[in-house]
């Protein structure tokens, strides 16, 4: 399973774009990159998943360079309610989900 490394914490201000990078140097050919968001006192919530290049949905964008050794979650114009822990997971479709680990995550604090 690919090991992931993320910054432990990040601070931002309302209205700014936030980019959180996850390193996964030993990503395998069949691996996908998935990001979850966890608000205080809630369970993690799936936000986006990708394999290569760029994926965008109503919540975030995910940028994956050609070598796939890292990925960047981009949150446009954050608000106070985006304060949460963000987890990057790297795993293959043929790996049992229970075997993929959430890691330490990145605690994003958005300030007014």
């Amino acid at each position, binding site marked *: 399973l690919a090991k992931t490394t993320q910054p432990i914490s990040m601070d931002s201000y309302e209205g700014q774009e936030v980019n959180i990078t996850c390193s996964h140097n030993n990503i395998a050919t069949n691996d*996908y990159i998935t990001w979850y968001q966890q608000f205080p006192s809630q369970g993690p919530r799936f936000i986006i998943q990708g394999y290569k290049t760029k994926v965008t949905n109503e919540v975030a964008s995910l940028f994956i360079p050609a070598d796939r050794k890292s990925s960047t979650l981009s949150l446009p114009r954050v608000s106070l309610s985006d304060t949460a822990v963000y987890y990057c*997971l790297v795993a293959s479709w043929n790996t049992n*989900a*229970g075997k993929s680990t959430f890691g330490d*995550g990145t605690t994003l604090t958005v300030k007014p």
Partner: protein
Amino acid sequence: DTAVSQTPKYLVTQMGNDKSIKCEQNLGHDTMYWYKQDSKKFLKIMFSYNNKELIINETVPNRFSPKSPDKAHLNLHINSLELGDSAVYFCASSQGQGATQPQHFGDGTRLSIL
């Protein structure tokens, strides 16, 4: 409608007691999980069930016994509670076992052992 619901939300009890946490999902998913999140926010898988069958048991003490009466329910019973069991326990579900399937989590059960 809550997709994955856990009860109770809070559980405060004495060391040595036995307690249960219930989990139900209305998403029609095949696979359900139990996770433990400690005070440092590290989320660790405990069990994984697929179609009521145990798939993963990650070196969890025998005091923890999951039970899946049907695909929509995965309950967790804990015997002889210890101080180190204090944590938030999350139930989750997904459509299929593959790690690329998004997992849907409940809001957790905060267990405090006195």
